[in-house]
């Protein structure tokens, strides 16, 4: 039961090496072993999406993965979203502008679910945005402003000549 397995994971561009019990969840590993507490755990069984992180660019629920499964992989958590100089990522800025957050507990999961979606679908319709969001639960906002934030961001980037 107490076997520890050495794992090595790249997170937000930085290499981490640590020992993990085989059944330690990735979410607990991030939060408790590495102190990356921006990843929140809401339902603990893969429904609410609060713990979403990117594994090699794909959104995954870190509460449904063991830490050892991330060995040798590349992770991005919410802490890695903002630029090195501290500037908010445009998605983060859009959430702030549109008041797409209230208690903030679900926010990191929404951002991480949206990141690959927006890369895949830069011209997403509202229907597609809602579908992309439907795997994340927010109990505060009623989702309107989250949808608004995404639409705002898409409009901005589509009108941006660069």
């Amino acid at each position, binding site marked *: 039961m107490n076997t520890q397995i050495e794992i090595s994971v790249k997170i937000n561009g930085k290499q981490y090496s640590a020992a993990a019990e085989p059944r330690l969840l990735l979410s607990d590993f991030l939060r408790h072993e590495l102190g990356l507490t921006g990843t929140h755990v809401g339902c603990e069984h893969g429904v609410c999406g609060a713990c979403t992180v990117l594994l090699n660019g794909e959104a995954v629920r870190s509460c449904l993965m063991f830490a050892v499964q991330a060995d040798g992989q590349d992770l991005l958590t919410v802490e890695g979203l903002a630029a090195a100089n501290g500037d908010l990522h445009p998605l983060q800025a859009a959430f702030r502008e549109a008041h797409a957050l*209230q208690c903030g507990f679900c926010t990191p999961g929404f951002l991480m679910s949206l990141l690959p979606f927006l890369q895949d679908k830069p011209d997403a319709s509202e229907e597609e945005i809602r579908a992309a969001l439907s795997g994340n639960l927010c109990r505060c906002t009623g989702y309107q402003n989250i949808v608004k934030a995404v639409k705002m961001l898409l409009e901005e980037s589509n009108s941006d000549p660069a």
Partner: protein
Amino acid sequence: MKHIDAAGHTRGESQYVDDMPQPVGMLHAAVFTSPVAHGRIISLNLEEAVRCDGVITVLSAKDIPGENQIGALIPDELLLAEHEVHFVGEPVALVLAKSYEQAHRAVAKIQVEIDELPVVTDPRQAFESGAIIGPARTFALGDVDTAWQECAVVVDGQCEIGGQEHLYLETQRCRAIPLEDGVLRLYSSTQSPYAVQKAAARVLGVAHHKIEVDVKRLGGGFGGKEDQATAWSCLTALAAHCTGKAVELVLPRHQDMICTGKRHPYSADFRIGLNQAGKILAYDVKHYQNAGAAADLSPAVLERTLFHSTNAYFIPNVRIFGASCRTNLPPNTAFRGFGGPQGMFVIESAIAKAAEKMNKPREQIQRLNLLRDGDTFPYGQHLDDVRAERTWDEAAQSFDLNKIKQATKTYNDDHFESKKGYAVMPICFGISFTATFLNQAGALVHVYTDGSVSVSTGGIEMGQGLVTNIARIAARAFGISEKRIKVESTNTTRVANMSPSAASATTDLNGHATILAAGQITDRLKSFAANELGLTDKSRLTIVHEKLLDGNRETGWDWQKLVQTAYLNRIDLSAHGFYATPGVWFDKQKEKGNPFAYHVYGAAVFEVTLDCLRGTYEIDSAKIVHDLGRPINKLVDIGQVEGGLAQGLGWMTLEELSFDEQGRFLSNSLASYKVPDAYFMPDDLQVKFLQNVDNPAGPYGAKAVGEPPLMYGIGVFFAIRAAMRAFRPDSDLTFDAPMTPERVLLGLHEQEREVLVTKI
């Protein structure tokens, strides 16, 4: 101004209780709870659990040094069960271990032998056996019994209203840190730091000042952490007290859902009488509240049910009866609306049934009976500045209710297996704690010599935007930039005896207290400056955009200079402000009074499309006209309206609490309890605010916004019902909520019910 925590939230830097760095040697707690809903404890065997890896100790009731009691209103709730258990999930023992996993593994090794007793889950059954909590209450106006004779139509009916799980995304949690001299600091996810402080002191047998409660923010509360955070915080405090170590308790989601109380299910009987024109002459209602196994806040919740039993309508002859019925469910508790929604659901059901019998449009009866200036509520409060008709009419006009009616009819004429329905839902919600003494708040404000400002209040930030509002209010009160304001964590050593952040009144109460504290400091600053500048009339001095003005004339002093010079001249730059809502009172003997500082009004229009073969439905639109007074921050308030609506819609449609006869909660995870997602929300959601309205009772003219919008959600039930009746005009539909697709299907195909039930 954006949400003050927006950057922190989006960076993942905002800290919740268990995000703070862990103290060295911190222990983790896990709770063992009763597996049965009612029984006598024969034996509790902790030995195997104590021997588990990493376990430090296992605590039970005998380890409590003070009083084993956490009931706030009525002392009927033990922290840890002693001889009997009264609901599934009642805490019995607490394991402390070096890790979270070890603590939970050990919990599984605890054995309890329980002699099971009969289980009651039905409030009417509890009522009949005399198991009520506190006295039954009756509000009355006019003479109901004789009024029936004047009525052209009298209709009876019954409602079964489901409860609701709060589903705050952050489960209940607390971290306790032992400090010197027997002091404990509790970082608790609570809406009521003082409730935690009082209860923990009682359990440990120490003075209140030995317990410090600190709350930075909550990952959602919605009422679920008003009283129900107390048990978990007290357990954590007990653990830290007994071990001398820092201890953290985080409820797993599954356990949180099983153990904690929810919105109260209600069962109700109504009788309503109207004249031929549709004017309601009499209304008689009996509410049987399913309080669960302990009082918690149930009597207060019941009281608000009585207050809001006539919603936004004036009815001259009314009798409203209510009883909190003790059952073997977890103690039900506060949830946004606090009993008001259930009271409103029943009157809306009564009106719907009367309209169906009279063959009149439901909204015709609703509109005809709306409150007006000069009317009186059944609880004696006289009304002025009523905005019921105004919000209704603005909604009907700006959203073109006639066109909606016509379009619905046309659609329904053209479609057989798909039907549309619409409904209007007016709301009237009283603002103030109905327990008058709770309508008080304190704020502690410091101005530092660099001109920055620190504000502490008794209010809790739980996502509703309190901190953003307080920062704006403080900046306005001083006449300085919002950037200078920092709102501190809520801490019992800075603000004492605070009321819970509840009743929609947190910004009102704490905002007023902040204005009063800032006013004392600016008053001192102005006296000082007037003296320095050789002015005789300090009342001519104002601070506008950080500049000190004498009338309209610049004095050459800015905020920075004012503060620095005042400091050097030994002027006190700190103040404590205290606010008590004026004019509110209630006489429980007479059941009359003036309990509310003011009321919030609004009206919503809903359209739905029903798939009559499948029972599924889409909410096509939700359009709202809402009264905010002069909003402090529209962005924050619109978020509250939309979020409240989402919860109200969920309560009325998807969110079904399912208990078995043995009192076990079946829909105990997010896999079996559905809440609205982004897809579920109405395709067309519009919120308009009433323009050019004031509210002298609110800070800078604002009205409270937290709870009222939830009750718009009731309208969707009646929109779905209308669509069902378009398919089956002759059917006798029940008033049972939530209106899940299953319930819709069974309602639509009553004749085929037996076939359906066996096939589902």
